[in-house]
């Protein structure tokens, strides 16, 4: 009970500190931009600030023994376990992958969205409760308990294969963002990203990973809400989003012609921009 309370307090502090640090950093960067700080510095700080926060959280949440490293001593409160899962769900895969797949492929990109959300339902209904009741540490452990050592080996291969594919996609997406914002080579960007990942996971194991995912959730929540309100307020205010929504869309020959596609998507972002935003018009949606 005490351990669980301590873990809950620690994660609550992590969540609050990261949210405040991200807000403060963003405000400072906005002030710096208004005062003429170079855009390259602003962009670099904007990318590195969240990563530095995650790495700091991972280092602060270092594990003290093997049980803490592997399972966080099974003391993560349910709410924070859910928050960590949501942070992992709404990471690069959803923020970058989902809009991109819908933008490039239209309705053909929907399996990514539905697969992510529906996969969590299947995980929660068919695997999660039984894995918990069996007190297994990993999914291959659970499969091995039920079906023997050969099934355990197969499950380990499947899990490693899926995890590697997913991690490679996430690293690619993160490296693309970093190399674009910091104007560095993609190899260097991947190395930087891998270093931050190691800082998140190595000192604390599962405890550090959960804490950094909670921090990621806080940053994502604030960032998403900020973008939503910025675009919602665009038709009524003189915020920078107004300029963005008025600018003509760049030509993208790689994109599918939405108008001629049988599953062509309608005005997707009309809901966010509101009916009064008649100045905004994209040729793709």
């Amino acid at each position, binding site marked *: 009970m005490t351990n669980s309370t301590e873990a809950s307090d620690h994660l609550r502090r992590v969540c609050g500190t990261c949210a405040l640090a991200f807000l403060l950093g963003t405000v400072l960067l906005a002030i710096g931009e208004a005062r003429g700080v170079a855009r390259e510095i602003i962009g670099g700080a904007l990318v590195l600030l969240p990563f530095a926060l995650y790495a700091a959280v991972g280092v602060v949440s270092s594990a003290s023994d093997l049980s803490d490293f592997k399972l966080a001593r099974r003391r993560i409160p349910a709410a924070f376990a859910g928050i960590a899962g949501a942070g992992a769900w709404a990471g690069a895969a959803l923020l970058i992958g989902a809009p991109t797949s819908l933008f490039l492929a239209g*309705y053909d990109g*929907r*399996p990514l*969205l539905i697969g992510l*959300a*529906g996969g969590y*339902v299947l995980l929660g*209904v068919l695997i999660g*409760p039984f894995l918990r009741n069996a007190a297994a540490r990993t999914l291959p452990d659970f499969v091995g308990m039920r079906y023997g050592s050969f099934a355990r080996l197969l499950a380990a291969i499947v899990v490693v294969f899926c995890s590697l594919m997913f991690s490679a996609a996430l690293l690619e997406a993160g490296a693309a963002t970093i190399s674009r914002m910091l104007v560095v080579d993609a190899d260097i960007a991947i190395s930087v990203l891998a270093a931050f990942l190691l800082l998140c996971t190595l000192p604390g194991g599962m405890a550090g990973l959960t804490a950094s995912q909670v921090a990621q959730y806080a940053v994502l929540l604030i960032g998403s809400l900020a973008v939503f309100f910025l675009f919602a307020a665009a038709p009524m205010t003189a915020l920078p989003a107004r300029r963005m929504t008025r600018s003509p869309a760049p030509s993208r020959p790689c994109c599918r012609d939405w108008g001629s596609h049988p599953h062509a998507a309608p005005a997707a972002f009309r809901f966010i921009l509101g009916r009064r935003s008649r100045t905004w018009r994209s040729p793709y949606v």
Partner: protein
Amino acid sequence: MPDANLLTYRRRTGRLMRVTLALWALFALCIPVLVVPLNAFSIPYVDLPLGFLMTTQGGLVALTLVLCAFARRQGRIDRDHFPTPG
């Protein structure tokens, strides 16, 4: 032979699982397949076709709510049949 409490627990858990999986199939399989016919219907106010809205946003929200409802309901079933933890 399992006692009555365990049998009832299994029956309620199984029913909940079947209902949840049926809802999963509805939102993750049926609606994405039927997106074009559903686009014939339009949501009032937001003025978006039903199929598009369900595929991009509504389905995700629905699946999240299904998962939350499942966890809440399963927790209640567990507490009803096994009041003491462990």
